[in-house]
């Protein structure tokens, strides 16, 4: 076996997995912990890409910095969207089907807004490091993939620390486990959930920046990622932050290795096959709790 090919396949898989983790992280909080099927999450990611494109093209801002700057705005949007969702569906107990329709509708609205304002042409960003790579021994690492990987790792670590070390983070975990118990402790579950939803949407801003660094974006491109994102969340164990990262790395690695040695068209089959086998053996996912 060619050692260089193998090591590069592993490196590419890890980098790709890091990117997948960034894309899935927000939905892991919203869907995995809050039980809200936000099918519009990829559309928020694409919205992040477009706004990063605007900041990159208009002010020459680095895509990652632009993504970080957009996070508070996305947080506020997330809080607002949750308030609407809560008032219209969750409060009345109609969140299952009507809520799903709401997020489908939201996805279409976001897509159409970007079609109206930006058209349907492909958008890309520019940065000095895009198109270059570093060589470490036999392994070549493109900056276009390394920067998203590092950004994803930092974001995942920060969310994990927030969730495990702060009162608010623990309250979010509590609301996902026992809403009534949290209420009895004097905390307002709705406020906790709106903050958690806001954090989930805030991650979409940075994920959008990473998406447009890797490839061109058009308003409906987020749909391509829906299946992969949900697969990662389920595989990782609904709502587990470390689980999301590990699952994303597994999917990224399996895609890269299968692409290199068997053929690219088998990559999704093997990745989803791995998901099915894992769920058969461990229904709660890798890091999930029953």
């Amino acid at each position, binding site marked *: 076996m060619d050692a260089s090919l193998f090591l590069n*396949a592993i490196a*590419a898989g890890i980098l790709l997995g890091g990117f997948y983790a960034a894309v899935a992280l927000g939905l892991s909080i919203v869907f995995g912990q809050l039980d809200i099927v936000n099918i519009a999450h990829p559309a928020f990611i694409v919205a992040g890409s477009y706004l990063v494109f605007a900041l990159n093209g208009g002010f020459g801002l680095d895509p990652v910095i632009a993504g970080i700057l957009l996070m508070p705005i996305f947080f506020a949007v997330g809080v607002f969207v949750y308030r609407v969702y809560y008032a219209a569906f969750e409060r009345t107990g109609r969140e299952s089907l009507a809520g799903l329709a709401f997020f489908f509708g939201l996805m279409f609205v976001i897509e159409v807004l970007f079609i109206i304002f930006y*058209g*349907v*042409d492909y958008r*890309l960003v520019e940065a000095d490091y895009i198109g270059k*790579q570093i060589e470490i021994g036999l392994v070549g690492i493109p900056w276009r993939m390394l920067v998203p990987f590092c950004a994803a790792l930092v974001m995942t670590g920060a969310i994990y620390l927030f969730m495990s070390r702060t009162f608010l983070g623990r309250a979010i975990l509590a609301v996902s486990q026992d809403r009534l118990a949290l209420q009895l402790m004097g905390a307002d579950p709705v406020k906790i959930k709106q903050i958690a939803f806001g954090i989930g949407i805030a991650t979409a801003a940075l994920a959008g920046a990473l998406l447009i660094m890797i490839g061109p974006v058009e308003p409906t491109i987020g749909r391509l990622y829906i299946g992969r994102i949900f697969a990662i969340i389920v595989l990782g164990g609904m709502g587990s932050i470390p689980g999301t990262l590990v699952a994303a790395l597994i999917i990224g690695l399996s*895609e890269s290795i299968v692409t290199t040695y068997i053929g*690219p068209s088998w*990559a999704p089959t093997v990745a989803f096959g791995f998901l099915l086998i894992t769920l058969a053996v461990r229904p709660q996912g890798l890091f999930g709790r029953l």
Partner: protein
Amino acid sequence: MRFFKQLVLAIAALAVVVAYSPQVSAQSGKPIKIGFSMALTGVLGAGGKSALIAMEIWRDDVNKKGGLLGRPVELVYYDDATTPAKVPAIYTKLLNVDKVDLVVSSYGTDVIAPAMPIVMRSGKVFLGLFGLDVNHKFKYDRYFQIMPAGPNPAQDWSRGFFDIAKEKGLKSVAIAGADAEFAQNAVKGARANAKQDGLNIVYDKSFPPSTADFTPILRAIQATNPDIIYFGSYPANSVGIVKAANELGLKAKLVGGGMVGLQFAAIMKNLGPGLNNLVNYDFWVPAKTLKFPGIEEFLKKYQAAAAGKGVDLLGHYLPPWAYAYMQVLGQSVEATKSLDDKKLAEYIHKTTFNTVVGPVKFGKNGEWATSRALMIQFRGIKANNLDQFKMEGTRVVLKPDTVKSGDIMFPYKK
């Protein structure tokens, strides 16, 4: 005297009627409705929307001259979102509810093929916009494809690419195509050409159109050490491939082939020097050999109309052909003085049309009688500059020889 006065008044009235008659009749007749679905959103939305602008320019040009058969032309269209499943319902509605007089296709193989059974059932003439080898299985004698792929489209499409390989004495080829209708047709033709030329196929695999990173694919290809790499890819794939190829320093001698998207202004501008020396298909580029009557005037109109609409700003790739397939339809209606599909089909089969993309003559299967699929090479591209693509020389026509504008820079990367 009274009779004389009446005669003068009658002549004056007649003169007024004659002077204004074309305009009056054009605006007063029942509109001729031309129906189609169009990829206005989705993967091919960027191209589809630019095609629509070109079709609207044609409609306005025709209506300014009095319409067709003295009747104004109206376009009736729906967004198919580049989703094949939506297409049959759209054409059923166009034909049965909107009662359109004529139909043309959406943009792209994937959304033309699903319309075929519906259109064939109605017996309508069907002009196609950039469908690769769509009629291969349908064998519909009223189908006409404006894309100049040639009589054997799947193979003719990439023939120029493999002719270059042959001239350079290259021996081995890697083929990679997206898992979708167009790309699979393109790689099928490439495979046939490679076999015909006795090339050793060292890699032949498909990839999902949603592939996010092409580095593993290119490394796997690089490991087989091919002389030639032929890609059949969609815009997002093509960008990923070019970026990964430059990062890796791909060592093959001839790279490119059937990569959609590398003709779009925004993508060319962003990829910039990364495109240099890549050899890819195209259908029109600024070159002395491709200056046809009306093309520059059309491009001026298109570029003015496209500004600020978030579509391709140059309009070199698809819009001239979208205008041309409407020209073919319009010229046929005027010549036959009819909307009868049988008469129109017979006329289109036997006629050479003068269009903004040059003379168009269809063969028996509705494809171009002779291929004019270009193989162009990106040359001397600088970073972040769109205007350079308006000039001759940044995209040099290598094939076919009849419209060649320069020689190849070889190999792909030194």
